[in-house]
């Protein structure tokens, strides 16, 4: 691919999707890790730009790359070089603060624990559906499986999560959840 064409394609992809990729990463990691994961995701995207989907349709593909990056991050105790993250005005990125991650509702806290007890793939498929609000076909693109397989796995993951919730001891009454920037 011609370098000019490649840079234009990458620029469109970067401009259209970097917010979604950063948010995807922030939903699954801390701010600094999310920034690094976003940068690494677009680093991979640049390496693969010749075979990348058209920018308008590239979001599931980018999610799949970000997912891999985050998986690698979780294995590590050290993070890769922060050179890129130290450039520009990244320091201005507001930290949502610990309160953004704190679930004050006991019921929802139990749900969060139940979610963690699911297999990672089950957790991810539910997050992709409910947090990223992706259609099943796009979830299939992220996970590398068919839409039918997504249908089945969403159904199974939902059943497993519900079963986990029902097994939780002392179910608490529903309470209000307060999260900065959230919908309480």
């Amino acid at each position, binding site marked *: 691919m011609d370098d000019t064409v490649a840079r234009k394609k990458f620029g469109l992809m970067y401009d259209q999707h970097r917010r979604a990729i950063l948010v995807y990463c922030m939903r699954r990691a801390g701010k600094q890790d999310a920034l690094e994961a976003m940068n690494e995701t*677009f680093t991979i995207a640049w390496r693969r730009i010749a075979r990348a989907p058209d920018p308008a349709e590239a979001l599931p593909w980018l999610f799949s790359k970000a997912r891999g990056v985050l998986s690698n991050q979780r294995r590590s105790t050290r993070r890769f*070089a922060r050179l890129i993250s130290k450039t*520009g005005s990244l320091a201005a990125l507001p930290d949502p603060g610990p309160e953004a991650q704190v679930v004050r509702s006991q019921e929802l806290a139990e749900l969060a624990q139940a979610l963690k007890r699911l297999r990672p793939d089950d957790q991810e498929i539910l997050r992709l559906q*409910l947090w990223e609000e992706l259609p099943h076909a796009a979830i299939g693109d992220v996970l590398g499986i068919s839409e039918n397989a997504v249908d089945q796995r969403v159904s199974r993951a939902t059943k497993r999560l519900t079963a986990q919730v029902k097994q939780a001891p002392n179910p608490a009454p529903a309470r209000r959840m307060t999260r900065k920037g959230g919908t309480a």
Partner: protein
Amino acid sequence: MTTERQVLQQLRALNPITDERTIDLPETSSTAFLEALETRRKIMSVTTEQPVEKSPKERTRRRNIALALGAAVIVAAIGVSALLVTDDGSDVASPRAVVEEFIDLQSSGQIVASLELATDEMADRERDSYEGFEVWNSRSEQTEPCQEISQSRFRCVTLDYDDFHGAGGLNPFENHTTFTVNEAGVISDVTTSLVDFPAISGFNLRFMSWLTEAHPEQAAQMSLPPSDNFNAEAARIALQYVDEFVAQSDDYPINP
């Protein structure tokens, strides 16, 4: 009575960022991003060149070169006195020697034994997964001398092999790893760029999806790396079924 619908509604409410517009983006443009990448490439020898598909012949050639370089590194590691003598007279291996010996052990399949060169913390953290990799007969072959990032950090490029991914025709896969070392040993080996990650990840996902359908009881007992739950038993289950998976797959093995 908690219904599935209620659970899904609550899970939606667990979303830590419900309005993406509340997140301010870094002001780095795509042009600046690519310039930063170029800077990093110059510093850390990370390629930003557009990918070029490698033919099987080229992969074979690259593999042969890698094997030759790996052998040269091993010979050099043996031939060069890598031991330093401290003031109290005790022998202390240089950080580079520790890293290269770590890789040498993994080159010969001694994955778990390589943890002898790690700190206790890393050994405890990684032992289960390393046992799994040893079941897979994993090997890491160094393709070039490790690049010194600092006195305690080295970036090394290896070609990795294992029997599980080998069944899918994916061997070898190029791995860039940053090793951090202190006086007690290797602290961490962090994959910073798994060049063939999409192929590896895709194979893993498809295998797990297939196993879940074909052998759900076994699938429920195991996870593949990089899951923290990957261990020797998971590796054995994966090896037990990978040929069956490949036999039923239209996509594997690649490069038969």
